[in-house]
């Protein structure tokens, strides 16, 4: 199956072409939906086959390359279309195609009746195609192809309802914002690639990584490479300072938010850092930067999430926050923990978004949680699964989120220090609070919607079955990564599986300090206790005493407004970056420099020549037209004569 891995790229591409070219004519939603879902479903089976086959191989033979054809070959540059099938890419592929398939199926129900049904499935398949290139590419350029490709799909899908309003603007504005902010990151990625090529004379992963371990390269060079790549990652994975596009990306249909803006695409940056772990590990300063940015992003987004009222916005900031955790993990050298969290997060966050979609679907497209309430009895399946996902993200012991989050917090403590752990734990507490605020306002308490117009109902099973599968995964998904403190030295299956990928990086990093098991268990208990108290508090306030919330928000009006307005980051960017560039280009570059100065010079010159020269004056009189015609005809005759007389 490993050799067939290209099918996982090819099938979604075919699905895209079929639905994209003929979807409008096919019309039948079932046919379109089945084509789209099957393309991804079969891909999942291929990945699964490759995974099982790889499991059967000895650890040192688990990295295989499947070459297709040469893409770019110029001078010393040799880029192949080739796929790297190893532990890391298989893990990511399983997530992408597995969760992707469930979301495709869900979308058949969710998008039912939409005019652009065929277009939606075409874009989704195109996305899987690009994402698979991203995770499977065996070199930086194929990765970049996928990287930009998923950005395009994100753009197309955020602006899917291109004629709709979104907040103060339109969906297409949100889409453009996403693409442009991502491009700022891509700029960094490109420079990173150039520097890698210059330093290691290759862009092939295996070559670059083995040379990185052996070439005598200055630490500052590694630092720049890692910095450039990390800029790319902050764009795609919505970290400070480039996180601003992700909340706006919620303008897209909800399955898109689940698939692209929660489970898969936004984790591409984490994957990239993880894939290039050796480069990062060789640049300790940048590692610290990654950890700090991750930590700050996690904290900042969580605080914003506390006060948002749009169900998808809360989840969006939650995603930004969770992505911050993943970078925190990578930054402290716990690469496998970051990928572990990518996986568990894919399960529970996809589930949360799909659940939110189910709620929105049942509430006639209302997204304001202040206008929900008591929905538990109307949509029991959605509620149950949403509740499970909430427990998972909150880090309740026994569910998937607990295992991955705990591993991150522990690594932060062991490799980063107490402050890292503390901020991480505070963020976990905030997470528990805003999630239970969300659950309370949506499913518990008084019904605050208009019963005459809104008739909440449970979604069809096409939508609820994927929810249940994801709920199951959110519960059991963590058991492949049980912390060593409970399972012994080789008990963490996930970590052992990925271990060979990170071995070169770990060799460069300082090893874990000596910490006792007692410490680990103590910290674990502390963070769980913090989360539980936050849950209790949130439940208490939002189901029993809503007055407290109002009281607090009015007493701390300044802070409340700051959070509600997302620290005014958008406004600062608009006033500090966007407007100056736009105004400067318009008023100075174009209208003064181009028109007044350059053209002024030229026109002045022309006037000067005109008044001094009879020939040029004739041009202005229009006589030249006949003059030129004669000249042209003359040349034609001369050329003809010349050639015929040869």
């Amino acid at each position: 199956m490993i050799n067939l891995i290209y099918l996982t790229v090819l099938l979604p591409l075919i699905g895209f072409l079929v639905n994209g070219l003929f979807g409008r004519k096919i019309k039948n939603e079932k046919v379109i939906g089945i084509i789209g879902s099957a393309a991804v479903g079969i891909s999942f089976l291929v990945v699964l086959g490759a995974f099982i086959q790889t499991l059967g191989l000895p650890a040192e033979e688990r990295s295989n390359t499947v070459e297709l054809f040469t893409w770019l070959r110029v001078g010393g540059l040799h880029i192949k279309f080739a796929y790297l099938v190893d532990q890391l890419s298989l893990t990511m592929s399983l997530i992408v195609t597995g969760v992707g398939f469930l979301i495709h199926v869900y979308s058949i129900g969710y998008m039912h009746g939409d005019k652009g049904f065929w277009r939606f499935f075409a874009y989704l398949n195109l996305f899987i195609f690009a994402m698979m290139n991203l995770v499977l590419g065996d070199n930086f350029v194929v990765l970049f192809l996928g990287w930009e490709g998923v950005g395009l799909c994100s753009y197309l899908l955020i602006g899917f309802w291109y004629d709709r309003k979104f907040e103060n603007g339109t969906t297409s504005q949100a889409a453009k914002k996403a693409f442009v902010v991502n491009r700022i990151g891509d700029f960094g990625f490109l420079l990173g690639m150039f520097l890698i090529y210059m330093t290691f004379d290759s862009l092939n992963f295996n070559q670059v990584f083995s040379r990185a371990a052996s070439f005598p390269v200055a630490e500052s060079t590694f630092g720049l490479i890692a910095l450039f790549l990390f800029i790319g990652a902050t764009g795609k994975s919505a970290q400070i300072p480039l996180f601003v596009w992700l909340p706006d990306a919620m303008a897209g249909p909800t399955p898109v938010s689940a698939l692209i803006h929660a489970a898969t695409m936004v984790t591409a940056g984490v994957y990239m850092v993880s894939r290039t772990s050796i480069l990062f590990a060789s640049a300790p300063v940048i590692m610290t930067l990654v950890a700090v940015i991750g930590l700050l992003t996690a904290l900042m987004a969580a605080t914003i999430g506390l006060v948002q009222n749009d169900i998808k916005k809360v989840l969006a900031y939650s995603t930004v926050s969770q992505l911050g955790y993943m970078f925190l993990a990578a930054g402290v050298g716990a690469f496998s923990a970051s990928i572990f969290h990518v996986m568990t997060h894919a399960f529970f966050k996809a589930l949360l978004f799909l659940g939110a979609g189910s709620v929105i679907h049942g509430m006639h497209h209302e997204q304001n949680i202040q206008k929900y309430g008591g929905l538990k009895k109307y949509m029991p399946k959605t509620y149950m699964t949403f509740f499970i996902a909430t427990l998972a993200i909150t880090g309740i012991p026994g569910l998937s989120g607990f295992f991955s989050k705990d591993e991150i917090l522990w690594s932060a403590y062991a490799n980063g220090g107490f402050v890292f752990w503390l901020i991480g734990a505070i963020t976990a507490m905030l997470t528990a609070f805003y999630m239970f605020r969300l659950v309370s306002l949506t499913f518990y308490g008084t019904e605050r919607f208009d019963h005459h117009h809104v008739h909440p109902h449970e979604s069809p099973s096409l939508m609820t079955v994927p929810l249940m599968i994801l709920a199951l995964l959110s519960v059991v998904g963590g058991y492949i990564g049980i912390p060593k403190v409970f399972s012994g030295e080789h008990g963490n299956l996930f970590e052992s599986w990925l271990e060979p990928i990170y071995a070169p990086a770990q060799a460069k990093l300082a090893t874990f300090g000596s910490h006792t098991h007692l410490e680990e268990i103590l910290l674990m208990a502390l963070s769980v206790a913090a989360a539980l108290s936050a849950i209790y508090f949130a439940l208490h306030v939002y189901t029993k005493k809503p007055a407290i919330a109002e009281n607090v928000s009015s007493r701390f009006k300044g802070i409340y407004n700051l959070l509600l307005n997302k620290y005014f980051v958008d406004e600062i960017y608009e006033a500090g970056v966007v407007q100056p560039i736009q105004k400067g280009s318009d008023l100075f570059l174009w209208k003064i420099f181009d028109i007044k100065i350059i053209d002024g010079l030229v026109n002045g010159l022309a006037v000067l020549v005109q008044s001094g020269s009879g020939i040029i004056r004739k041009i202005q009189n229009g006589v030249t037209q006949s003059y030129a015609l004669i000249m042209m005809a003359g040349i034609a005759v001369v050329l003809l004569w010349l050639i015929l007389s040869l």
Partner: protein
Amino acid sequence: MTQNLFLTYLLLTPIIGSVLVLFFKKEQKQLIRWFGLAVSLVAFVLSLIIYFGFNSADPQFQFVHQVIWIKSLNVSYHVGVDGISLLLVLLTTFLTPLTLLSTWHAIEKNLKLFTFSMLFLEVGMLGVFISLDIFLFYIFWEAMLIPMYFIIGVWGGERRIYAAVKFFIFTMLGSLLMLVAIIWLAVYASNTLGYFTTNLLDLYKVGPTVPHQIQSWMFGAFFLSFAIKVPLFPLHTWLPDAHVEAPTAGSVILAGVLLKMGTYGLVRFCLPLFPQSAVQFAPAISILAVIGIIYGALVSMVQTDMKKLVAYSSVSHLGFVVLGIFAMTVESVQGAVIQMINHGLSTGALFLLVGVLYERTHRRDIAFYGGIAKLVPLYSTVLMIAMLSSIGLPGLNGFVGEFLILIGSFKSSVLNSWTFTIFAASGVIFAAVYMLWMYQRVVFGELKNPALKSELTDMNLREMIVIIPIFVFIVWIGIYPSTFLKLTEASSQAILQQVGMFR
């Protein structure tokens, strides 16, 4: 030396065609159209025959045909192609029939003269790309100005005369300096070689021996002429006016092929003839190129006229090409050559598509449109693909060129600084801004102008026939550029060797 007549046949085809057009009656419009198309298709087929007979491993000029023309001056009719010129010949013969087809209904006035001019223009362009005698080159270089002057001046928009004259004066100014340099060089050759010659292959040996000070002046004269044609910042202001006033066909050929004559000139003449000066001035020129990339993009961003926006984007794109040429690495020069083709395809397609709207509504201002996606879904998709190609999305053609240019300039020993690449790469951000913004304002949103409902129809079969071949190459170059990179590899290396030999 064996003579190969294929290039001469190729050149002769539009010459004979253009002369024959003059014998048609004015009223036989349909016949004239079909005739023009047929002639340009014959030329395309001929160029394909040349392509299949071309040996890309051989860096020498092939299909060479040389006949003494003016004995006393040792000037000869001397044509031949290497990989780079062949690729540009193919671009020319490929775009000309598509352009003629695209204006099937748009040109009614003086159709005979128009077809004549278009075919004559093709002669000029082909001649420029295949001339191996610098005197012959100059004739074609000048000759092609005239039909373009007419195309803008006769079939253009309201301010066509201003634009045509501006175009003419700008380019003429540069050409005259080049003529002086050509004559000087030929005279200099008679001192070193013992005979007066305008044979480019001989001059390749002479140019590098010109004393440093004088070489700088010679280089400058050639460079200025080409830089105006490219156009390189700050010599670009004729371009937006020419584009805006030119009819669609004019814009397509202007962006698609004419501008490439400037960059081709840099590769064919400036680098190998004056290698020392080229190396010496490379950083300064690259600064202008990088300014052009960013400046073009920024000014493009704030345009209100779609054609002007695309025109300024050309300034940006061609900045990449110039940067690639003067970075002088295999990667960057190969990338520059591919980017010449890319720009011809992508920007050609964009002008065609602006023309599609213009033909229906006679409006080009962005604000007039808005929300047309529902009315013209096919058009919207096609425009999206052209736009993505233009902004360099990996998998489409633009990426290949930009990537090679940037990665080549990054490690360039001639430029010897990352700064160029870092600033140039920021162009990928701005490109996304101006293109997506225009797309958003024209295509997305709610329908702004209800009157469009009756005026705007989706793309018809003829328009699709024009655009699909271009898209085939946009995807082909994006996914399998080897076909084209192989063609130009030996030639690019030969030019760099010539430069390297005299550094």
